[in-house]
């Protein structure tokens, strides 16, 4: 048995969040999520938290472990021999205990149109849309995102300005912009060029440190700056207004 602390928030009982200690059984393979499940099943059924796959693929179990964003199912108690404090993901409004409101994150994801957009690069839709392994390799790393939001909890720029499009959404925009079957780049550049787009990033780089899937969103955002600079120059010389400034 060992003790862990969880930041509770029960709005009907107290307007302030408070830390609560629990004694949980541990083995070498006890994950943070296992510990939370033990608390809910055996100690306090009112504890609220999200999870589903418990194998780092659904992206729903993100929490702060000793202040660092982690997937509860991919982080183990054995990594924390001393204190262990579990808090809700940073930079998002907390609804209850470890449950955060992901609406702003989802809004940013939607804004970059993260799907293949038909146009000159898309084959006739009655035909299979083929791609070579080399074409796929260009974007595959950025396609591994599971939308867990850990990178948003790691990003001080998002913490200071929730309107910042943010790491995962920009990485996803970049993933589709690099896809040989897509023709939607011009549409996606508008939100990326805007003041809450790629230029809000100062390359702190912590998003890429905490990403559980090796997406390297910081690289995508900064490759996005190169693309944004190119697209703004092209617009300047072709005499059109700069699209999307202020959305």
């Amino acid at each position, binding site marked *: 048995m060992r003790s862990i602390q969880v930041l509770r928030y029960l709005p009907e009982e107290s307007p302030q*969040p408070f830390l609560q200690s629990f004694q949980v059984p541990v083995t070498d393979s006890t994950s943070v999520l296992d510990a939370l499940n033990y608390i809910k099943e055996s100690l306090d059924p009112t504890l609220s938290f999200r999870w589903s796959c418990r194998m780092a693929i659904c992206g729903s179990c993100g929490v702060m472990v000793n202040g660092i964003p982690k997937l509860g199912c991919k982080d183990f108690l054995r990594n924390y021999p001393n204190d262990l404090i579990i808090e809700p993901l940073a930079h998002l409004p*907390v609804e209850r205990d470890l449950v955060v409101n992901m609406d702003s994150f989802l809004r940013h994801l939607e804004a970059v149109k993260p799907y293949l957009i038909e146009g000159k690069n898309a084959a006739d839709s009655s035909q299979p849309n083929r791609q070579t392994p080399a074409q796929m390799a260009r974007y595959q790393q950025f396609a591994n995102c599971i939308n867990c939001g850990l990178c948003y909890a790691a990003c*001080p720029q998002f913490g200071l300005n929730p309107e910042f499009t943010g790491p995962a959404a920009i990485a996803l925009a970049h993933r589709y912009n690099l896809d040989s079957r897509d023709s939607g780049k011009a549409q996606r550049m508008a939100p990326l060029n805007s003041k809450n787009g790629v230029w809000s990033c100062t390359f702190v*780089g*912590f998003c890429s440190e905490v990403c559980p899937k090796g997406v*390297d969103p*910081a690289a995508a955002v*900064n490759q996005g700056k190169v693309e944004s600079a190119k697209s703004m120059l092209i617009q300047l010389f072709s005499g059109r207004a700069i699209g999307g400034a202020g959305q």
Partner: protein
Amino acid sequence: MSYKPQLTGSWWLKHRFFKAYMLREATVIPLAFLLCSLLAGAFSLQDPERFQHWQAFMSNPLVILVHTLALTTSLYHAATFFVLFPRVMPIRVGNYQLPARYLVLAQWGAVWLVVALFIWLFAFGGQS
């Protein structure tokens, strides 16, 4: 009913990763001082007396200290920048992705080339 903790001005003290980031950004301070010194030097060229003042200023141990700091912190900034560069501009030749470490090495190579050029100019007056 939800709550949202606000980020305070001391957010960057919470993790060593953020401290390293702030250090990287702060390297601009001694560098700005060096640039101002050089600019003052350029203006002092108009008048011999002012130029002597500037030379005295430049040999002040405190000024030398800040300028040495500017050199070391700029090298630190360069080191962080060179590692980030291959991630921002990955170079692809056909289907082959150039490994990041070659790009990092190439950038340091360019630094040494410039340093060698200056040593040659100052130490040998441009003559071999």
